[in-house]
């Protein structure tokens, strides 16, 4: 009975709005000097300012302001010559101050855009995503909900608060309504978040780890019947913590809205939570009373008025656009589109680039990062960059393979040992006694022994039955405990039997 996506999209036109929150990679918080390190013991990174104690005076972090302007410039925004912070008043214990310092009608950056490209079955398609605003705010604390249905806020007996995260600088990037994407809406959203993440990473303003929450996406979705002008009622899905989830959540919401509309039901304007396991959303906090945040200008923080010189200085430090960089790399590496897409998807572009810089051949470098290493990363559900193997390690391994001191098979053992923390490349090769048996005389001796042990097989090979040589090669490989280079053994053996 569930509606298919194609059926939903045949009747309705989706409109999207994406809000991305980025935690900035400053070492101290937005308005105080508390540390921002992730994962510290509860409430070890707080002070009177971020706890909102009476009399505390916040002062804005210069670096956070610079980062926000850099983000705005990278997204082709105008930088406001004058903007203010505002108090967003609400009572929820994740903010100990009972308001969040944010920006309201005067964001630092406005009116930008980001161009993205998606791969479709009809070839690649370009979209321009318009940016409404880029504004500064602060992150909230973390709540643990105790008792009741495990971990959920509804019906919990009480909650426990850790304010280490409260006050970490947060930038919110809001798109204008994204229209005209039709059935590609979910992929467009994913491509936008992915491109944005690449830009933020290139800027060095955030570690952009979606799984740790330093990059979070809220997706607004609405549908209207095809041909209709009026936007439908939107839902806002939160808790979307991976690129894949962005795509899934939007797809799921399009289907859910279409089912409601098809049966003449109303879409309720509400916050919904995405569940990674089911790919579905459930209704979040009820918003029975309309939100009333009573924003007003923050009296404790003076306005921000970046000078032309300041903006030009930041503009001069902007790195190359990721899309331009990707094009250059692809040309330099002569990588096919598919492999380029695979590297972007697996998030190993930087690693491959670093490996190539250290002297590895581009094809070999990417085949390791996309092959064995990606496989292990997948198996352990972590990012390749989080494994204990560096670009330098891979470059060293590739060099050893080129020199003939490692076979691909032995190299895979080294890679696995590296990832398991058995030491550096040289140590592993030594401690595991890994070495390619390439000394021809010892190989020849082993070949002679194999032939002597199976003279009938050798005779077949001499007679032209090449596949029969497999048994002899196998015997030699077995004797060398797998350390001989099989291709070399084959060459020597066939030559020896007059078939080379």
């Amino acid at each position, binding site marked *: 009975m569930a509606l298919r996506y194609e059926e939903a999209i045949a009747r309705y036109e989706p409109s999207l709005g994406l809000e991305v929150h980025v935690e900035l990679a*400053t*070492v*101290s918080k937005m308005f*105080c*000097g*508390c*540390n921002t390190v992730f994962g510290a*013991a*509860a*409430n*070890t*990174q*707080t*002070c*009177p300012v971020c*706890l909102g*104690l009476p009399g505390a005076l916040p*002062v*804005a*972090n*210069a*670096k*956070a*302001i610079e980062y926000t302007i850099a983000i705005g410039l990278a997204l082709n925004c105008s930088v406001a010559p*004058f903007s*203010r912070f505002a108090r967003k*008043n609400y*009572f*929820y*214990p994740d903010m*100990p101050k009972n308001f969040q310092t944010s920006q309201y009608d005067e964001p630092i950056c406005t009116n930008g855009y980001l161009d993205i490209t998606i791969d479709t079955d009809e070839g690649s398609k370009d979209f321009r995503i318009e940016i409404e605003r880029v504004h500064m705010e602060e992150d909230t604390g973390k*709540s*643990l*909900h105790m008792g*009741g249905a495990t971990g959920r*806020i*509804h*019906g*919990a*007996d*009480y*909650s*426990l*608060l*850790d*304010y280490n995260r409260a006050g970490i600088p947060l930038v919110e990037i809001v798109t204008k309504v994204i229209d005209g994407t039709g059935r590609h809406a979910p992929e467009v959203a994913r491509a936008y978040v992915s491109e944005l993440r690449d830009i933020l990473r290139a800027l060095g303003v955030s570690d952009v780890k979606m799984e740790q929450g330093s990059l979070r996406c809220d997706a607004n979705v609405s549908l209207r019947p095809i041909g209709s002008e009026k936007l439908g009622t939107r839902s806002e899905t939160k808790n979307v913590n991976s690129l894949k989830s962005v795509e899934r959540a939007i797809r799921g919401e399009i289907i859910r809205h279409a089912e409601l509309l098809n049966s003449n039901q109303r879409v309720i304007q509400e916050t919904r939570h995405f569940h990674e396991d089911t790919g579905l959303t459930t*209704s979040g*906090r*009820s918003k029975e009373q309309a939100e*009333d945040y*009573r924003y007003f*200008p923050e*009296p404790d*923080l*003076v*306005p*921000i*008025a*970046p000078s032309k010189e300041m903006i030009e200085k930041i503009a001069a430090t902007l790195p190359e656009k990721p899309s331009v960089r990707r094009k250059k790399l692809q040309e330099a590496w002569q990588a096919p589109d598919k492999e380029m897409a695979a590297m972007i998807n697996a998030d190993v572009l930087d690693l491959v680039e670093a490996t190539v810089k250290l002297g590895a051949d581009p094809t070999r470098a990417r085949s390791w990062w996309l092959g064995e290493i990606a496989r292990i990363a997948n198996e352990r559900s972590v990012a390749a960059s989080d494994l204990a193997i560096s670009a330098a390690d891979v470059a060293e391994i590739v060099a050893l393979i080129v020199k003939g001191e490692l076979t691909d098979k032995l190299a895979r053992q080294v890679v696995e040992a590296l990832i398991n923390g058995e030491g550096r490349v040289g140590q592993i090769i030594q401690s595991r006694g890994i070495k390619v048996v390439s000394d021809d005389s010892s190989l020849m001796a082993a070949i002679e022994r194999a032939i002597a042990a199976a003279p009938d097989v050798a005779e077949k090979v001499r007679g032209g039955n090449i596949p029969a040589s497999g048994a002899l090669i196998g015997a030699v490989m077995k004797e060398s405990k797998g350390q001989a280079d099989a291709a070399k053994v084959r060459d020597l053996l066939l030559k020896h039997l007059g078939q080379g």
Partner: protein
Amino acid sequence: MTYMSSISRDDVANLAKLARIDLSEDELAGLVKELSVILDAVARVQEVAGSDVPPTSHPLPLVNVFRQDQVRPSLTPEEALSGAPAQEGKRFKVPQILGEE
């Protein structure tokens, strides 16, 4: 002097609800009077200010007061929690936020 209250009882009741302040009927009535006086005073100032005077949010003409991005010592968890009515496991303990759906 007679005046029309520039803020209604319902306005004040709504604000009190948003601010999580429990007010009795008497307190509400008193605040309607007091807040109205304040609002009237502000309204008179607004009449005087011409369109060439921008709304003031800050009394001093200062902009761009920043601090460098440097870590300074934080409070210990014990200090941070010293004023908390309730705590558990070095965390602030707060009553139920939302009931069952």
